[in-house]
């Protein structure tokens, strides 16, 4: 005989799960009792939302679904923001929650919450398991759904009696058969042909690359397509890292907080090839940003994204990997006109401006732009949300590493737990967090997870004692009335670091900050660097 809880652990093992992030509670105790004996590492976070962000960071760096676990009621509801963040960013994740006994469901007993109901708009799919026998199938389906098609979080809610009930034997299904779920991954040959004809005809083509390029794991092929065709590349926030920032053809991030050059190229273009991006409102504020005669080719795994935000002439539904292969095979010698490419590339240097320096402060944009060179080339930079996110998105000179941030949901407090996940996925890589003093305080409780697991994450806090991005909005649109955006009562972050036993330092100039960073790059210990930033430093 085998219990449901044992089956849950065996399912995770069968899926090759090495680490899960979670927080226990009464309704998930049977599972915790079994995972205690398993080879799977359980990482105790300090709040459930951070378990979801950690699973998300793990997923993005490992390419496998991250797993987070919480108990029923408040444990489960605390997960929601993390699940929603993963959903908008299309990150594969499995969220496992305990639930009250099946016979008590719906009776509002202690720590009961309808979590499948509450999560409905934020999950790709969810299960409320009603029979122990169903567990293997549910887990198999959940991992399949999360990691195929347009990736996303799947929730499995498991009442405690389903975990304790025993059944005869355990067998993990070899395959799944979900009648209504057959994502179309192969691009349509006729549409690809039309796309190639449009590229050939185009005088001013650009590529807009999104997170889909990264999640289908085809960076090299994508780069070779751009190199071969000499088409300039713009990225969305989620697409940062599709090419090294210093690549000649790479223009930077588009959008309201993006690079001027990228937005200019998008506006001038007569053909936009959108690759794995949904072009949300922060990327393309209005369709008018593109000229009326622009032809749009939109390649995406999710048919619902095509034509949702911008009018599309040539839709190609499919996995970027397959579609790009088809394009690479059929593109021949077609190239973007050299004068267009040259013009756009020239804009890059013409519009570059060194940010001004304020004495006694760290200039965050300059620091971020120097950061990559100080760390190893595969470094993972995790940015939080606020001005720090824009400073990082526009200035981090990514090489072979990753840039993790939440582009869709924009969840403050994301960076520290996501970095925890990233470090577990890629222990040998440098993992750097950049956050503001606001976002740091949203998840600084995770310093315990970092200290407890001796994770060599380097945290850089850009301290301006402001909620800088909102303050900037207030400057522009609310008559400079700084309602609730001046941080008062902040703790001494160095003492916080001290309390967790984490090495730390403070910098008041770029030279000082860089000197400190150079001293810690080769250490495998965590570090907190507090950079004092001039409060009126703009985002862009």
């Amino acid at each position, binding site marked *: 005989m085998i219990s449901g809880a044992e089956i849950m652990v065996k399912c995770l093992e069968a899926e090759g799960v090495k680490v899960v992030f979670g927080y226990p509670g009464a309704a998930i105790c049977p599972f915790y009792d079994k995972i205690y004996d398993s080879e799977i590492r359980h990482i105790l976070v300090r709040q459930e939302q951070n378990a979801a962000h950690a699973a998300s960071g793990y997923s993005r760096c490992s390419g496998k679904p991250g797993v987070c676990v919480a108990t029923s009621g408040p444990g489960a509801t605390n997960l929601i923001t993390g699940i929603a963040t993963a959903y908008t960013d299309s990150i594969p994740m499995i969220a496992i929650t305990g639930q009250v006994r099946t016979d008590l469901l719906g009776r509002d007993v202690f720590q009961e919450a309808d979590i*499948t*109901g509450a999560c*409905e*708009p934020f999950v*790709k*799919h*969810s299960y*409320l398991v*009603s029979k122990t026998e169903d567990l293997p199938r549910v887990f198999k389906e959940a991992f399949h*759904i999360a990691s195929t098609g*347009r990736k996303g979080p799947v929730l499995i809610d498991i009442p405690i009696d389903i975990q304790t009930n025993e059944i005869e034997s355990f067998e993990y299904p070899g395959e799944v058969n*979900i*009648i*209504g*779920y057959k994502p179309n991954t192969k691009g349509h040959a006729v549409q690809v042909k039309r796309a190639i004809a449009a590229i050939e005809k185009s005088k001013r083509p650009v590529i807009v690359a999104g997170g889909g390029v990264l999640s289908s794991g085809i960076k090299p092929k994508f780069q070779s397509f751009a190199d071969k065709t000499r088409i300039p590349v713009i990225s969305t926030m989620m697409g940062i890292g599709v090419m090294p920032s210093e690549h000649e053809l790479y223009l930077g991030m588009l959008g309201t907080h993006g690079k001027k050059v990228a937005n200019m190229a998008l506006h001038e273009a007569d053909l936009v090839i959108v690759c794995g991006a949904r072009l949300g409102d922060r990327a393309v504020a209005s369709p008018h940003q593109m000229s009326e005669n622009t032809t749009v080719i939109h390649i995406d795994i*999710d*048919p*619902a994204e095509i*034509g*949702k935000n911008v009018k599309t002439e040539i839709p190609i539904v499919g996995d970027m990997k397959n579609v790009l292969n088809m394009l690479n095979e059929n593109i021949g010698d077609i190239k973007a006109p050299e004068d267009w490419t040259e013009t756009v590339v020239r804009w890059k240097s013409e519009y570059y401006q060194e940010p001004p320096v304020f004495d006694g402060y760290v200039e965050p944009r300059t620091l971020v732009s120097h950061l990559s060179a100080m760390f190893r080339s595969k470094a993972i930079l995790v940015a939080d949300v606020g001005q720090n996110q824009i400073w990082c998105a526009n200035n981090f000179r990514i090489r072979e590493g990753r840039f993790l941030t939440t582009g869709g949901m924009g969840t403050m407090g994301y960076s520290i737990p996501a970095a925890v996940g990233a470090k577990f996925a890629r222990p040998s890589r440098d993992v750097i967090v950049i956050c503001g003093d606001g976002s740091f305080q949203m998840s600084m409780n995770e310093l315990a997870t970092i200290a407890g697991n001796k994770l060599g994450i380097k945290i850089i806090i850009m301290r301006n004692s402001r909620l800088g991005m909102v303050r900037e909005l207030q400057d522009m649109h609310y008559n400079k009335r700084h309602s609730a955006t001046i941080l008062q009562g902040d703790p001494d972050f160095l003492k916080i670091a001290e309390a967790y036993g984490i090495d730390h330092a403070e910098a008041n100039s770029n030279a000082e900050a860089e000197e400190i960073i150079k001293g810690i790059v080769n250490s495998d210990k965590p570090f907190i660097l507090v950079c004092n930033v001039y409060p009126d430093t703009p985002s862009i």
Partner: protein
Amino acid sequence: MQYTLSILVENQAGVLSKISGLFSRRGFNIDSLAVGVTNNPGVSRITIVANGDEYVVEQLEKQLNKVIPVIKVKRLNEGEFISRELILIKVHCAASKRAEIIKTAEIMQAKIVDVAPSCVTVEYSETADRVNTLIDLLKPYGIREIVRTGTIAIDRGTASVSV
């Protein structure tokens, strides 16, 4: 623009809320909704009638297709399908008016299914338009209660929406 969607779904708990949620989350109203099992006991059909422009309908079709237990979604083309609603109308009916009401029901090809001293109950299965006509005809007598199903619809000819 009014449109009719025929949706085949896996017969499992929570599907209906997933689907109705897609509409309500986007602020769209559903005019009518009907659910019933198909010839395959594992598969149910949901018929939805709603309003929206072409962009809205296309988005909804795509979003519905993304719901995992949804097997198939088809927008039925205007004029190419047969639709029905079932209605039960309890009408106030003094003895003196009974013959008149029965005559009206006969003309409309509706059925009297229950008679009481002061009221009759009429059963009618027709398109939404015809059902509305019958309601209008019976209104002057005093309607006590209306029970009405959502629209169900099926393609004309050999076309079908099946697994």
